[in-house]
């Protein structure tokens, strides 16, 4: 057998084996690998590289050594899934480096993390002042996770005491001019509904590049033809406006009527409507 055929066969077969081994070892980003996984990856690559081009050594040598470098990390991973102590040993533990706003120098030293590293990691999180930090943890993969002090944290709806309507994920129901049936079924809608909604907007499905439905069943589309204007959903803002108008009308009636009984009726209902508006407006925003 000519050499070039041998090399081709070796390259292809080892490539396939390597592909499956790395797949079975679990998918992770390169930056998330711990040091052991990182070395395993390099060694597996090295074994393949050597055996593809070295025709003197039989190919099963490559398979044996790759298998060993696959099975041990695999077993280690399985064991560490089961046992917490084993996991701490193989994958390392996170270490607190700032607590109650104070830097814990001893822990920094144990992780071989110097002051510049700490400042750099904080800057990555957009923190330029150590005094702004309440708590910081150094993760085993070398990343620093930071909890800023209460006053330096971004404000949330909870802080403001705002009422916010809950919502679910948006489903993509049209892609490249074709309806996607599974997402539609997820929100218990059917293609007929989709057609009706598109008819209301006066667009044909072939012209829709992307269409999404939010948790309130409102359809928004992006068209291939960017010169066409697409109506944005008006149902909810219109509803809120109508409610406000009716409320104002009722108040006006209450003021203008002279019949005491009617006045009371208008007043009561205008208050009721105001209550309804307050209750529903988070959902209509």
């Amino acid at each position, binding site marked *: 057998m000519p050499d070039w055929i041998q090399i081709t066969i070796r390259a292809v077969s080892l490539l396939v084996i390597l592909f499956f081994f790395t797949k079975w070892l679990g998918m992770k980003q390169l930056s998330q690998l711990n040091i052991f996984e990182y070395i395993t990856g390099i060694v597996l690559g090295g074994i393949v590289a050597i055996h593809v081009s070295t025709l003197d050594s039989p190919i099963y040598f490559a398979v044996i050594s790759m298998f060993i470098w696959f099975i041990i990390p695999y077993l280690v991973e399985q064991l560490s899934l089961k046992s917490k102590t084993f996991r701490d040993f193989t994958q390392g533990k996170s270490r607190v480096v700032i607590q109650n706003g104070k830097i814990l120098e001893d822990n920094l030293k144990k992780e071989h993390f110097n002051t510049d590293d700490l400042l750099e990691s904080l800057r990555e999180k957009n923190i330029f002042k150590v005094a702004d930090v309440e708590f910081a943890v150094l993760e085993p993969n070398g990343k620093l996770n930071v909890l800023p002090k209460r006053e330096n944290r971004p404000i949330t709806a909870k802080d403001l005491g705002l009422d916010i309507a809950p919502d679910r994920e948006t489903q993509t129901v049209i892609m490249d001019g074709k309806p996607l049936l599974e997402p539609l079924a997820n*929100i218990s809608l059917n293609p007929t509904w989709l057609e009706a909604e598109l008819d209301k907007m006066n667009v044909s499905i072939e012209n829709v590049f992307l269409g999404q439905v939010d948790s309130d069943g409102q359809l928004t589309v992006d068209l291939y033809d960017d010169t066409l204007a697409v109506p944005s959903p008006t149902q909810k803002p219109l509803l809120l406006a*109508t409610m406000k108008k*009716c409320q104002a009308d009722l108040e006006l009636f209450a003021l203008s009527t002279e019949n005491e009984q009617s006045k009371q009726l208008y007043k009561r209902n205008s208050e009721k409507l105001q209550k309804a508006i307050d209750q529903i407006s988070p959902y209509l925003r």
Partner: protein
Amino acid sequence: MTVGSQVRTCYASIKSIEATLSILSNQTNELTAREAYKEVESIIKEIKEDLNKQLLLLAREEPQYNQ
């Protein structure tokens, strides 16, 4: 525009609000939102019934609107 026709317009708007709320409550797949819509829909319904009574009263006072 007489008071009668103004109240009539308002009554129509209330009916439209009720219908829209019912559409929204059927359309949403979020349970809490559905309940909120339903609750407000029932308030609107009460208002509608009150206004309807008022409309009958006004119709007696302004008989030309019955024709």
